[in-house]
């Protein structure tokens, strides 16, 4: 029982990452019909927004400390961040400590701008082109973004910790009446889950309670006719792209403390996020979110020891196996809409 609750919690958490990435991808892929292989790269860029802000906040000046020596035996250069110099060591340290949450504010305009630029500069020429061409161009873009990040930040993961108060975990089991240490849950993952809920809710509300979603869906189905009805669909597509980029970016920002960002983290998630979106059903936001959580939870279950004892290696393939089963039993995934990318 406790083990199951534990894995559900883990699944929810993994699921919220999947759901958040899939949500952004669905906006572009499921709704605009653009097979965006650069979506993982957007997620990665989000995480690197956090890294960058961290770097900016820790920008330092060097002073020479004669009492210590560096590895070559020369006097040691000691770095002091400017913020600590300006705001005093304590406030300065606190600001640096809160770099990741602060990056949310930093990332939103940047990611929207990147989304806009990407759509205006590149993607807009590809709406009418075959999916294959979209794959090639967005894959090219993903490589370029990735390599640029690698050029500036290296290939190694870069630790980007959460604020101190969110470090460590709390004992969830005790709340439910279990023994201590049975069900523990890290604070930051809790934050991530809640954050994901807010973003998902926000995007849903925006698309549900405005006509925006309908117009974009219509525009994807038939751009020409929507234009005939006086709607500037290009603008809306651009906006949608910005939104998707922002969602992907925020997912990345908040993910940074969970796993140290590296330049290829996007590619690691890419395939999985496509699977999630398709299993959820093309064009369906609730489907993408549902599939994200479902696959997250199933993945967690599959990693339990007794499950692995029964079927060795099941955790290696569970996602794909479930995807196959769902797609074979439900032709359009969990909640897919008819006619979206079926040809």
């Amino acid at each position, binding site marked *: 029982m406790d*083990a199951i609750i534990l*894995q559900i919690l883990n699944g929810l958490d993994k699921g919220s990452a999947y759901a958040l990435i899939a949500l952004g991808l669905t906006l572009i892929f499921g709704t605009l019909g653009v097979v965006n292989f650069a979506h993982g790269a957007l997620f990665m860029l989000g995480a690197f927004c956090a890294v960058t802000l961290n770097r900016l906040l820790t920008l330092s000046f060097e002073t020479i400390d004669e009492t210590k020596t560096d590895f070559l035996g020369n006097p040691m250069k000691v770095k002091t961040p400017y913020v600590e110099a300006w705001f005093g060591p304590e406030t300065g340290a606190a600001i640096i400590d809160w770099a990741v949450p602060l990056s949310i504010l930093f990332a939103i305009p940047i990611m929207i701008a990147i989304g806009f630029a990407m759509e205006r500069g590149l993607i807009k020429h590809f709406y009418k082109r075959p999916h294959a061409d979209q794959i090639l161009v967005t894959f090219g873009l993903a490589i370029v973004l990735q390599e640029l990040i690698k050029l500036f930040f290296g290939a190694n993961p870069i*630790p980007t910790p959460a604020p101190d108060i969110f470090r460590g975990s709390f004992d969830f089991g005790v709340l439910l009446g279990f023994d201590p*240490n049975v*069900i523990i849950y890290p604070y930051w993952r809790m934050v991530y889950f809640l954050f994901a809920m807010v973003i998902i809710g926000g995007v849903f509300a925006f698309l549900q309670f405005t006509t925006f979603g309908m117009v974009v869906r219509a525009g994807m189905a038939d751009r020409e006719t929507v234009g005939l009805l006086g709607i500037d669909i290009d603008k809306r597509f651009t906006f949608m792209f910005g939104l998707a980029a922002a969602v992907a970016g925020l997912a990345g920002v908040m993910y940074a403390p969970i796993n140290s960002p590296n330049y290829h983290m996007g590619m690691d998630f890419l395939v999985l996020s496509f699977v999630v979106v398709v299993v959820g059903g093309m064009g369906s936001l609730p489907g993408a979110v549902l599939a994200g959580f479902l696959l997250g939870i199933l993945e967690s279950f599959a990693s339990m020891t007794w499950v692995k004892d029964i079927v060795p290696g099941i955790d290696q393939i569970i996602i794909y196996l479930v995807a196959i089963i769902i797609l074979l039993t439900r032709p359009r995934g969990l909640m897919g809409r008819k006619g979206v990318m079926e040809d």
Partner: protein
Amino acid sequence: ARAFTNEPGASSVTLGFNVPQTGPYADEGADELRAYQLAVEHLNGEGDGGMLQTFSSKVLDGTGILGRKVEYVTGDTQTKSDAARASAKSMIEKDGAIMITGGSSSGVAVAVQGLCQEAGVIFMAGLTHSNDTTGKDKKANGFRHFFDAYMSGAALAPVLAKMYGNDRKAYHLTADYTWGWTQQESIQAATEALGWETVNNVLTPLAATDFSSYIAPVLNSGADVLILNHYGGNMVNSLTNAVQFGLRDKQVNGKNFEIVVPLYSRLMAKGAGENVKGIFGSTNWHWSLQDEGSQAFVKSFGTKYGFPPSQAAHTCYVQTLLYADAVTRANSFEPCAVVEALEGGDSSLPGIDSPSNKGYLFDGLGNGPTLYRAADHQCFKDVLVVKGKDNPTSEFDLLEVVEVTPVDQVWYEPDHPMFAGGDLGQCNNGA
């Protein structure tokens, strides 16, 4: 017409540096390349000479190798055995490389080693830690300077016992592929020999990025030590996750819960950030070593590049010198002659009484006296046990050496069960 593959001409000789330049180990590969370039400079008599002066063999004099200027080509292994072989092949077939070296994973090392054996060139492995490289997949044309999983276990276990006691219950998370398995097997055997109990060993997919669902059940399993048999990105993430779950703040069985990472590298430690503090592991070499050779190397590397070298850089540098030295001693580039020189007659490590204690003995390249064992082409030397430093003074100062385990403690026989099954075969001259 040639006596052996890629017999060099009179003026220059080409070496092939095959390292990961793309993919997750690209930074490691970049550091290896730096070391290679440094080694080439030193061999050609440029720069300050580095470890040439401290090396116990004195035949290298900074005039290239056998009077030929050393040139090199580089390639990208992409950390994939296929790509690594393609790259090595192009060095051999197109560029006429006579020795291939590099790599930062065991899969790649084993694959390229096999290729070099068939093509008839020498392979000087870079970073490869699996027992198989000089165990069941050993090859006559291949040599490894790096230590292996068995040695990690043998070196680490006594230190762990000293620090954490003999009555511990260990929970293993293991990367589900060959290296992970050998690593786990080695450390389990070593810790159990000291009285530890192994509660569980859970295999994790190589592609996993989030280890929460593997880590969450650990606390409740009765274990009080978590051993992460992970490397690279896997290790960075699993350690980060474990710390996130607050494992290190917990008490189990009345003891502090501990985490161990058997194989450490500085780059990984950097990736895991704060989380490595106080965590034990083993490493092949560390720049803070105070012996003359290590100091000389750190100095020339640090002066040239502005930061201290990694263990991968060290191994790659040493491998290049060792090859050059062997060629010079053999007075021939012919692979079989080089192999013979590296297997080195009858010298043996002092203090180890074993018929297999035979090979090429040298010193002055860090880690004290070192033996290239003739029987399996594995290097034997002291192994470092390190700990994540609590108060790093710089971004490179992440690990501190807590113990230098003497070589006799990590010694094993070539027919040890973890290494059995392979056959060195015959050296191959190719052509």
